């Protein structure tokens, strides 16, 4: 460990590189195994001894997933809920975040603390009351309600992040635009939003990943098959223990993760900056 502990570039890197590769194998090995299984035939997937890489690679499992009657609907629901929730969070989060950064008024501190407090209430504690309330007013199985609930989970962080981003923009820029006769909405739209675009991208990326990956909210509040997402469809396969096909399921896993994998690949910098924001002061 001695090479790893010091941080000077003087020590040899070879042991550290070897150990880094070890971590990469631990993390990526299981994922690679799932990927390999998805290209195997159903028979080869359960062969003993298991094959490391398919003898005869096939895309049949992927075709089967795409051919499935409910796939398009599940996929569409996943996209609508995730995009809808993030758009809604930004629509309500940008005005609130801007006001938090730029206005001084009595009660602002209380408002921001209430928003912070809501982020501490775990979704699991609200399953029973929310189910009861939705059932009472007949709003179970509503796509719009699910979208709003998912949105509420990311609104607190959206407001707080945007407030910090806006605060980092010098107020003098706004003042000179005011002098030139621009109103508040023009300033936000033409001046502030373009300036804080990287921040908004980070918030949106994390929001999409969070809502796309949700299982509980959709499974509990919209149990109807027509309203389910890819995540719910995947878990339902696990419950269907008799008909389980591992190669099909791993193909499903890959497809259900593809959007977040692509997003992560494209914007991992924003993703990481979003994760570490506020955690470390440089």
């Amino acid at each position, binding site marked *: 460990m*001695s090479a790893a502990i*010091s*941080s*000077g570039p003087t020590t040899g890197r070879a042991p550290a590189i070897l*150990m*880094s*590769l070890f*971590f990469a194998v631990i*993390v*990526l090995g299981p994922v690679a*195994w799932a990927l390999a*299984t998805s290209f195997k035939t159903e028979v080869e997937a359960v062969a003993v001894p298991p094959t490391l890489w398919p003898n005869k690679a096939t895309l049949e499992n992927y075709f089967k997933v795409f051919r499935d009657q409910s796939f398009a609907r599940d996929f569409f629901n996943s996209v609508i809920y995730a995009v809808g929730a993030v758009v809604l969070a930004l629509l309500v*989060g940008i005005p*609130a975040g801007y*006001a*938090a*950064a730029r206005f001084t*008024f009595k009660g602002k501190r209380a*408002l*921001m603390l*209430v928003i*912070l407090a809501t982020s*501490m*209430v*775990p979704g*699991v*504690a*609200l399953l*029973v*009351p929310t189910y009861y*309330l939705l059932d009472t007013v007949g709003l179970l199985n509503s796509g719009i309600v699910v979208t709003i609930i998912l949105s509420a*989970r990311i*609104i607190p*962080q959206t407001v*707080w*992040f945007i407030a*910090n981003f806006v605060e980092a923009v010098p*107020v003098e820029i706004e003042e000179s635009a005011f002098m030139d006769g621009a109103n508040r909405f023009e300033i936000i739209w033409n001046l502030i939003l373009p300036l804080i675009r990287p921040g908004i991208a980070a918030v949106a990326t994390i929001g999409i990943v*969070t809502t*796309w*990956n*949700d*299982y509980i909210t959709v499974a*509990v509040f919209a149990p109807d098959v027509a309203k389910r997402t890819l*995540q719910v469809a995947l*878990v339902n396969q696990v419950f269907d223990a008799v008909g389980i096909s591992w190669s099909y399921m*791993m193909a499903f*896993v890959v497809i*259900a*993760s593809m959007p*977040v*994998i692509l997003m992560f690949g494209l914007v991992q910098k924003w*993703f*990481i900056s979003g*994760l*570490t*924001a*506020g*955690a*470390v002061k440089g």
Partner: protein
Amino acid sequence: MSASHTQTVVAGSEASVLADTPATRNPAHLSWAPFLWFAPAILILFLVTLYPTVFVGWLSFQKTRYYDLTGFVGLTNYVEVFSSPAFWNTVYVSLVYVAGSLAGAVVLGMAAALVLNNAGPTGTVLRVLILFPWTLSMSVVGSIWLWLLNPSFGPIPYLMQLTGIDPGLMLGDPGLALPLIIVVTAWWSFPYVMVMATAAMQSIPKELYEAVEIDGGGPLVKFRYVTLTHILPTLGSTALTLSIMYLTLMTLIIVMTGGGPLGSTTTLSFEAFRGTVQAVNIGPTAVVSIVVLLINVGLGVVYTRLTGRVTG
């Protein structure tokens, strides 16, 4: 919620927004206009979060049959829950689960951060690859590991057999299910610790290490008195974020064991979920939900205090 990766990260820079900075342009005056800017966000949070939070408290005082309320019963539900051995078992399972996962994730995450920080460009590339599973959903992670651990066809039981260990029932074994779920949780979440620890390490001034070198300190001294001292606050807040996440995590357990075998993986959160969907008697489920809520808010407040100090 399994996916709320950043649930509490938002609190990080509380001090700056709450303070009256010179950047604020309008003089303080009581006006309804600023509230309009907050109204849509507050409305949604009220309907989805605040009102149900109050309502679960009210539910916990009701006598219930399925989802029907049949009258006020005071503390009966609380007495029923707190005097049941099954409840205390879920508390115990939750504690073991959170502590075990946390220990695994922090140790692995710290080790990975230290190692990758010293691996030069290779480390930079691998760091991104290693963070990758963090983006996967709990249903996906659960499905993959269910396959890897499958006693009949999975590769891990196969490797165990090759080395002469009887894999037995794996997740079907009441003594093994919880440890296995802890391993999977640590596997999924240690990259998060790694990223946080790395960010903190990279903010340490190089001069501090040089100073130790001048004083003749070795690598262990550097680690103990420079690295560890500097990243401890970040590690603390990361550990709290993870504790909150683990405590509320249900999907992995739903997929991998369904709370079994014999209740050996039934955590408080899983119990709240099970009570909601089975809907036999929601009064006691409301009490369990409140317990989860209070622990979470408690940890959240500690987190806010801690990060407030870090950034302050």
